[in-house]
């Protein structure tokens, strides 16, 4: 007998299923934030590479940061990466289910701790990188 007769039926789902509802679109945007995350990491890698190529190569690269296209790309990337940060921290209470005695630690407190940590980390990074 052919295997086809025995296999279960899968209802065909169109590849555009995620355009049907707003939560699906937001889910897809969240997933696509990873492209901008990786893109910025490659940018950082190029920056370090330019650092190995000497003061001129590095200087030219840093000067290009002032170009409108660089600023625009940074702003778009920032929007997507911020969406990653927000959705990521909002999911932490779902993964970190903490109890104090019998009571569950409120979800807002768990997520809030990560947001507070984010602010502290951001200040430290800015202080170290910019040296101000």
């Amino acid at each position, binding site marked *: 007998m052919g295997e086809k007769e025995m296999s279960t039926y899968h209802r065909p*789902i169109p*590849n555009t299923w*995620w355009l049907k509802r707003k939560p699906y679109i937001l889910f*897809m945007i969240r*997933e*696509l934030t*990873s*492209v901008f*995350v*990786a893109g*910025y*990491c*490659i*940018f*950082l*890698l190029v*920056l*370090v*590479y330019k*650092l*190995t190529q000497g*003061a001129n190569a*590095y*200087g030219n690269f*840093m000067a290009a*940061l*002032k170009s409108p296209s*660089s*600023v625009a*790309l*940074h*702003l778009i*990337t*920032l929007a997507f*990466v*911020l969406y*990653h*940060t927000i959705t*990521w*921290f909002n999911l932490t209470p779902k993964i970190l289910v903490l109890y104090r005695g019998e009571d569950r630690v409120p979800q807002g407190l768990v997520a809030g701790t990560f947001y507070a*940590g*984010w602010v502290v*980390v*951001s200040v430290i*990074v*800015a202080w170290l*990188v*910019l*040296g*101000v």
Partner: protein
Amino acid sequence: MAKSNEPIWWSLFSAGGMVAAMVLPILIVITGILVPFGLAGDDPLNFERIHTAVSQNDSVELILFIVITLPLFHWAHRFRFTLVDVGLKSVSTLISILCYGGAITGTIVSIVVFWNI
């Protein structure tokens, strides 16, 4: 239960996602807004200062290496499932190889770049 590499990829996805969430926004603000518009003093990312910081300090180098490479695995794991979700399930093995392979390649390139600094 069948043996699976899934926990490894998920751990890297998770660690990379946390690193990205914590440090990338401020870095983007620095390289995209503060530095180009001169809002953070006179050329704080000048060659001398950054080159010295990265080449003379192993911990700076290690942190920068982690910040660059871990999020690549976050991307690989997430993007892999995104492509499957939009209908590329029939080539899911190829997608896995390309995504995780891409992250591994990025890590190897990073090792070479950091080695030469």
